[in-house]
Structures are given as C-alpha cells and as structure tokens.
C-alpha cells in the first residue's frame, strides 16, 4: 500500500511539473515504485530490466529538455487529468477486477498476493496517462502520458501467466522507443516553435 501511495503522489508530481526535467525525474520515481509492488510473483531479473528501462526513458526525456526551464505548464489540465484518473480508476477496478470471491487483505509494507495493489496502480497509471495524453497540447505532456500508460500496461502484463522475462524485455524496449520518439518530437516541436 505504501508503494501505491508513492505511485499516486509521484504521478501527481509528474503531472503538475512545469519543467520537463522535473517531469522526467518524477516519472522515474513513478516507474520504480510501480515495478517494486510485490504481488507474490516479483522476480529480481524483471525488476532490474524494468527499472533500467525506466531510468533510460527518464534520462532521454531529461536530455531532450536541454535546459532547466523548458517544459509545458499543465494549468487546468492538471485538475481535469487528476479527477478523470481518480474516477476512471474506481470504475475500471469495479468492472475489470477478477471476481474470485476471495477476501481481500492488504498491508502497509509487505507483499500483496491478492494483486489488488498492482491492479489499482495499473488502472491509476493507465487512466492518468489517458487523461494527460488526451489533454496534452504538445509532445512534452504527450510523452509523459504515453510513458505512464505503458507503465500501467506493464503491471497488467506482469500478471499474465507465460514467458514473463521475454514480455518484460519487449515492453522495456517499447518504453525506451516511446521515450526516444517522444524526445524526438519534443526537440522538433521546439525547433518549429522557436523558428
């Protein structure tokens, strides 16, 4: 539960940041906390691969900023994104959570084998990402939205039985490519705006 709280707070920090470099650092915190949530199937190799990809993605965005002040002011979009994300998370959890009939037990620090924490974190990241992406004016917040959505997706894919390491590697590559494409667009949009 503590990690879930960290995911929520750092997502809000990334969402509200006016400078791309702060956004990049906050995204790394989001991704790290999300990948450390233990649903009983956590493997060190997967955490390492996912954390490395998150670090690379954050570094790419950090470098793309080029200076400390560059970014996009979220303005009213911050509140819209937060309200929509909160409402959608609750709705998604109600509709899409497996109906196992088991009693849900969560604790503050230990692992959560019921998977509730992972599901809530995934739905929160997905809905925050969608809200940010849909209200973004340019590639700065667009990239953040895409990366948050992808992190949420990674959490859901973790719960699928099958070749975990291969899928983790694939999605980690995807995360790096999303960050690269996002950074490329940020640099190009900035060049077009400053011309």
């Amino acid at each position, binding site marked *: 539960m503590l990690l879930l709280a960290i995911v929520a707070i750092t997502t809000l920090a990334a969402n509200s940041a006016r400078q791309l470099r702060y956004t990049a650092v906050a995204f790394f915190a989001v991704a790290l906390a999300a990948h450390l949530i233990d649903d009983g199937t956590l493997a060190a190799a997967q955490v390492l691969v996912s954390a490395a990809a998150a670090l690379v993605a954050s570094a790419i965005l950090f470098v793309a900023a080029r200076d400390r002040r560059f970014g996009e002011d979220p303005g009213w979009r911050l509140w819209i994104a937060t309200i929509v994300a909160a409402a959608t998370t609750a709705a998604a959890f109600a509709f899409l959570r*497996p109906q196992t009939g088991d009693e849900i037990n969560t604790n503050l620090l230990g692992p959560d084998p019921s998977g509730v924490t992972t599901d809530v974190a995934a739905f929160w990241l997905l809905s925050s990402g969608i809200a940010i992406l849909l209200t973004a004016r340019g*590639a700065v917040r*667009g990239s953040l939205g895409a990366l948050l959505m992808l992190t949420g997706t990674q959490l859901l894919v973790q719960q699928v039985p099958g070749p975990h390491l*291969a899928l983790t590697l*694939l999605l980690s590559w995807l995360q790096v490519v999303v960050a690269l*494409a996002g950074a490329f667009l940020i640099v190009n949009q900035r060049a077009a705006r400053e011309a």
Partner: protein
Amino acid sequence: MIEVVALLGVAALVAFGVRKRLAVVGTVTLAALAAAIAIVVLMPMDASGDVLELPWHMSELARLAAVVLLGTLCLLVLAVWVDEPAYNFFPTALVVAAVVLAVLVLTTPIAIYGALLLGLLIPVGSFTFQVHRNRSAEAAYRHFSFVALGGCLGLSALALSASLGRDQPPSTFVLLVVILVVAFALKLAAIPFHTHAALLASEVPASALALYFGVLVPTTFIAFAQILVLSGLLPAIVSIGKVQDLLLALGITSALGGAFLATGSTELRRVAVYSVIANLGQALVGIATLSGPGIIGAMAIALVTGMAATQQLLAAGTLERRAGVGRPSATNAPLAALAFVVGGFAMIGAPPLVAFPGHFFVELIAYSYSAWMGTALVIATLGVLVAQLRAAMAIFRTAPDRWRVERKPIAGIVGGLVFAALLIGGVQPDGFLQPIAAFADQFLRALHPL
C-alpha cells in the same frame, strides 16, 4: 527465425552508422532485405521454435505476408535510394522489416501486439522533415499519440483478458473486446479514428507515407486477425452479437466514409490514403462476417491494398516533386502518372488483378449477410472508382506535344513491378489465396473450439 530478425536488427545499426553514405547504406539495406526474403522462402513450412520461451511458428500466411511485405519494403528502399534520398529511411525500413517478421511469426498475442507497437512508433523519425516550413512535426505527434493511446489500451485489454478466468461475467469480456477493437481502429485509421491519417497524408514525405500505409497498416490488420485467433476471444465475440455489430459498423463507416472522402479529395496522396481506408473498411466487414470467404477476402484486400498504396503514394510523391509549385501532371513524369493510374485498378479490385478475388468474396458474403450491407460495399467501391478516375483525369488533363520518359523513372518502374506481381497473382490466384485459406481455417476452428 531469431537469426533473421537479428540480421535485420544488426543491418539497421550498420545502416544508421553509414546513413549519409547513400551507396553503402542503400546496398546494405537491400542486401539485408533480400537475404531475409530468401531465408523466409527457404525455411521449411511449419518451422517453429521459441526465443526466451516465446514461441514462434512459420505458417503459410506468415510466409506469404512476409514475402509480400518485405518485397514492398525492397521496392520502397530502391525508390528512396534512387529518387528521394532520406537518410533516416534506411535504418527505419530495416527495423520495420524485423518487426513485420516478428509480428507474423510470433504466436503469443501480447508479444505480437508489443512488436507491432514498436513497428508503428519507429517511423516517427521518418515523418518529420523541414519542420519550419510544414506541419510534419504535428502530424508525427498526432500519429505518436494515436499509437500510444490505442497501443496501451489494446495491450491492457489483452493482458486483462488473459489473466481473468473464463468464469467472469460476459459484460467484462464484452468491454475488453470492445476496447481491443477500438484500439485497432485507432491504429488502422478507421473512420471516425482517422484524423491523424488525414494530417499525415498532406504533411509527411511520400516515402514515409508509403512505408506506413503500404507496409505497417497491412501488418496491423494481419496482427488484428491473428490476435483474435490466438487470444481465445473469438468464442466470446460469437456468443455476444454486439461486438460483431460494432466491427460491422466500423467497417461500413470506414468503407463508405473513406470512399466519400476520396471522392472529394483533390490531392493525389489523399486520394490514395482515403482509398486505403475505404478498402480496410471492406476488409473489416469481411472479418466481422466471421465466415471463410469473408476472412479470405479481408486478408487478401489488406495485402493487395498495401502494395497498391505503395505504388500510388510513390507515384504521387514523384508527380508532386516534378511539378514543383504547379499541379501534378503527366507531362512532367508520364511513367509515374501511369503507375498512379494502374495502382487505381488494384485499389478498386478490378480483374484480372489479384485484387479482384478479395473484393469479390467480401462483397458477395456481405450480400448474403444482408442486402443493404452488400449494397453499401458496392457503393463504397464505386466511390473509390470515381475518386481514382477524377485523379487520373486531373493528372492527364494536359498533354505535351511529345511524350518523353522522365529522368530517374523509379516510381514508374516500381509501379510496373507491382502491377506485374498483381497480374501474375491474378492469373494464378491459388498461390496467393491458398495460404490465406489455411489461415481462414484456423480462424474458423478458433471460432468454434469444440
């Protein structure tokens, strides 16, 4: 198979390193693509294996689609090398080739989807050029947003459906399948999710546009069909008619809307792009009928439309470049103009090209499904025909005193090669339709697992 994907990946890295030495990068790219095609053709049918526990299988459809799509990529690379040097295009084409192969041979739905997303994001680098003078950066950003949104939604829906037990309420599966269908509609630029395609059509280089509509869009369609088969969601679609209705509605809207927009377009690229959207709408209807002829027709339309789109978009790019600030005209590049016009035959599914059976099957099965649906598809085809005729008349409006073949007639040569391939396929349709029929069998078995 991993060796072929690795070969293409290494070649992409080499191509990126030497991308400004055109002769070297062109040779490396074409050699790697040719080697990949040769290995795929020589590989025994039904070869299989696994990579990091991810299983792969070379099916008949995978082999056919790999040859068609990698062949199309070869033609595109040749055109860019000779006529429109764009340094980033070569490594991009190689990565796309690797991704296309992975999508075609992997058998895990989530892995197919993940690989597809990689392929759809890679061309972002080829979409932007001279950002101070046009809106290519905005077009590329809109494409990025649509792919990220549709991609993550679709992947999440797939992951949830795979992790949920089959004893969940039907409404849960309906919701997940609807999300998956909408996610693919976003990536296929199906109407009403086509706004990014409209901007791409007018702002990005013709070669990058051909890479997207000629190679990646057909790959996306094949991935959609494969994922439906492999994810085990088909029985849920059959038992709940609403999803089938959604697919039919999307297909008919795209077919009619694409044809309508193509008819009203004055730009050659837009005519080609909206014709692709109209044809993909027909293909979606084919899949939605959940019948053998419908599935065969849908896959055939997707593959042939990709080839025709490549032919038309390269020709449109050449005609625009040669015309400068004036209107594209056959007087500047007669072979490219001819290539555009014959590409139109494939777009409308005219016999004797191999484009004909696909359209015929889908329209026939649509009529047997309901008369108004069949009529809608015939109207859509007529709309595309009118759009192609208008475009052809606009290109050939003025005739020079003496026809002279343009310098570097690569678009015309590519058009001729594509036309010859479609003609040979039309004369010998079994070679093209047999592998697709094998996939349709697999699709129908997945539909009724017992």
